């Protein structure tokens, strides 16, 4: 792996009295696929939103590439300046725009010349295998197709960092397996840095180079997602069962 692409340094985030992230530090290397694993409410989604600039950290710093984008109490770069692709848990596809229209909106915001846009849109729709839905609205698509459309929207701007917030949580097991494989292949071939939030350990193992587990706003463990890691995860599951 190359040097750090994304760094969180002692990041803390509170909602009122409640501490959501408690002095969290983590690093993601360029081209690395990291899964943030943890139960609901452990702060993993908040971490993702802080990286995207959708929330402001109360303390600590966020660095993307060599640029400090947020520091205690301030976002130094707005979300649009961070070159990020984001797939939301509920996908957040714009219901009033067609799939091609959504992609065009992203490219327009990025000031991509009009003559280039059509080619870029076709390219990403083909990559996600949803060319035939270019003129469809999100409501006309199945769950899997919507998933692909959300990923297409996240990728069309050629982001340096892809953030995924439990994007497969509403899909059935078979479809999820297929899409996870595709996502992994896509990330490896594009060489894009990715951070994937999930509470599902098998999902994390399927997609990630490295897994970071979180609990109650803190980083608990980090390990490489190979056979040894599998054993560790199994032990963790046992521990959880005992606790329950």
């Amino acid at each position, binding site marked *: 792996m190359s040097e750090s692409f994304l760094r969180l340094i002692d990041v803390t985030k509170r909602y009122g009295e409640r501490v959501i992230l408690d002095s969290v530090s983590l690093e993601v290397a360029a081209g690395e696929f990291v899964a943030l694993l943890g139960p609901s409410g452990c702060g993993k989604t908040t971490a993702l939103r802080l990286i*995207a*600039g*959708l929330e402001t950290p109360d303390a600590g710093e966020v660095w993307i590439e060599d640029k400090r984008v947020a520091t205690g109490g301030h976002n130094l770069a*707005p*979300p*649009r300046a*961070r070159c*990020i*692709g*984001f797939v*939301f848990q*509920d996908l*957040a596809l*714009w*219901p*009033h725009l067609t799939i091609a229209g959504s992609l065009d*909106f*992203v490219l*327009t*915001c*990025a000031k991509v010349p009009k003559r280039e846009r059509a080619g870029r849109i076709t390219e990403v729709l083909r990559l996600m295998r949803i060319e035939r839905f270019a003129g469809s609205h999100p409501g006309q698509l199945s769950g899997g197709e919507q998933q692909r459309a959300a990923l297409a*929207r996240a990728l069309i*701007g050629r982001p340096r960092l892809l953030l995924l917030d439990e994007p497969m949580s509403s899909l059935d097991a078979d479809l999820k397996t297929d899409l996870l494989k595709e996502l992994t292949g896509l990330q490896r071939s594009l060489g894009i840095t990715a951070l994937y939030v999930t509470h599902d350990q098998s999902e994390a193992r399927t997609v990630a180079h490295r897994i970071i587990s979180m609990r109650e706003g803190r980083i608990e463990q980090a390990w490489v997602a190979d056979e040894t890691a599998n054993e560790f995860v199994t032990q963790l599951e046992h521990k959880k069962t005992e606790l329950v």
Partner: protein
Amino acid sequence: MSTAATAIARRPFIWPSARAIVLSIAAILFVALCVLPTLYMLGVSLAGADGGFSLDNYRHLLTDARQRDLLLSSSLLGIGTAALATIIGAPLGLLLARADLPAKRFLRLALVVPLVIPPYILGLAWIYIGGSAGLLARVYGRDLLSSWTYSLTGAVITLSLGFFPLAMLATEAAARRVSAHLEEAALLVGPPHRVLRRITLPLIAPSIAASIFIIFVLALSEFGVPGLLRVPVFTTEVFTAFAALYDFGAATALAVPLLVLALTAGIAVKLLIGERMITTGRSTHAGLPLLLGGWRALAIGAVGLVLFLSLGLPLTVLAVEVGRIERIVSAIKTSSEAIANSLLLATIGATLIIALAVLLGYGRARARTRLRGLVDLVFIVVFAVPSTVVGIGLIGLWNRPGLPGEIYKSMAIILIAYLARFVPVAALILAASARQLPVSSEEAAEVAGAGWLRSFARIVLPQLRNGLAAAWVVAFIFAFGELGATVLVSPPGESTLPVRIYTMIANTPSSEVAALALMQASIIIIPLALLGVFGRGQVDRL
């Protein structure tokens, strides 16, 4: 006999369920009381002089110069009011939904008040301000504004100051429904102003458009303000034809274009907002806050100005016109019968409206067939029918020998007018409330052995109590201020407070009229304030 035939012959008769019987009775009552007047008017519109089918009325509308003038002024009144009220109301709705304003709950409640004060009271106040003998003329010693006050523009501004809360509430509700994720996804690629223009506004546009149509219909059907400000439109001409010239045929013919315009607007509303009409609630991810920065003071100032023009100034002027508190006491004494009639009729009317609407709303919320779209359409279209058209329709239906005639001669016809006008809107409010209830709570009662009637009374109604209270207050306020239909159907010698105020304006000292208007406004504002204080959340739902 074939096997199939035998099976049919042996199939036992199944009694309809209690639910089917009760809901069917409610539907029949709705059709008889609320839909028939409109159908009657529609039938009349399609009948020629010989009673056969004819499109003469519609042809006449396009060819007759007077009808064309009325069509133009009525349309301008509707379009102008819809445009101005939306220009005032939509930004306010966005501010209430997203901006960090102080005392937001109070502001929302205060900004809703102009909607519930009958428009003719606002019209009266503006006459006392800008009329030829108004406050401004008295202060400056010469008539400054009367030519403007008594004009189509004056009517548009007065009605806009009464109806802007509709655009405000629609915009606020829609802005709250937009998931923050949809906007955040856009913020990742574009600046906030572009997100507002390309994502937020298109998502709330259908609701704003629907409120534009609703305001258009209400302005079109408004009778009091154009009547007071001497603006000839269809509603005032219908009243003149019937009440002054005793020409029922002319009144009916004049009501036809209104009906056509209202039906068209009603259908447009249904097409625009569809299922969202009975969907309440907010997005699970609250929308992005509107950061005003240096504009905050300006926004607060704008809200203050709207409150001053639509509420503070009119009520103050009415109070100034009254002069002394004894005049209110005197006005109450001389109009005690009309006041008592209004309070009694509005109370009974609101209760009857809610009794019928709760069944209709429940039936609509639980409907699984495609008919529910048609039901929504009927609710909207019936609500859109102008008050004077309802009045003429009721006269045509009930003014005949026998039992209908006896009802027509009694105060019961006023209650029927209230039902005909306000059951649809109450049913829509209650359908939205009923939809929030999980079907499983009724299924649990059924499994426990409760019949539908018991389940409805013990499980459904208690859970709907907040919605019922809100809908009752809305129905009371509307019924208490109803003028257009009541002025036509009131039995001789009987009147309600709005009818009395309207008929007193021409020949009674302004202090007495203002005293009654102020008292009527107070009677309406007090329950709304109570609803605001004790019914937290219900005001949002309205």
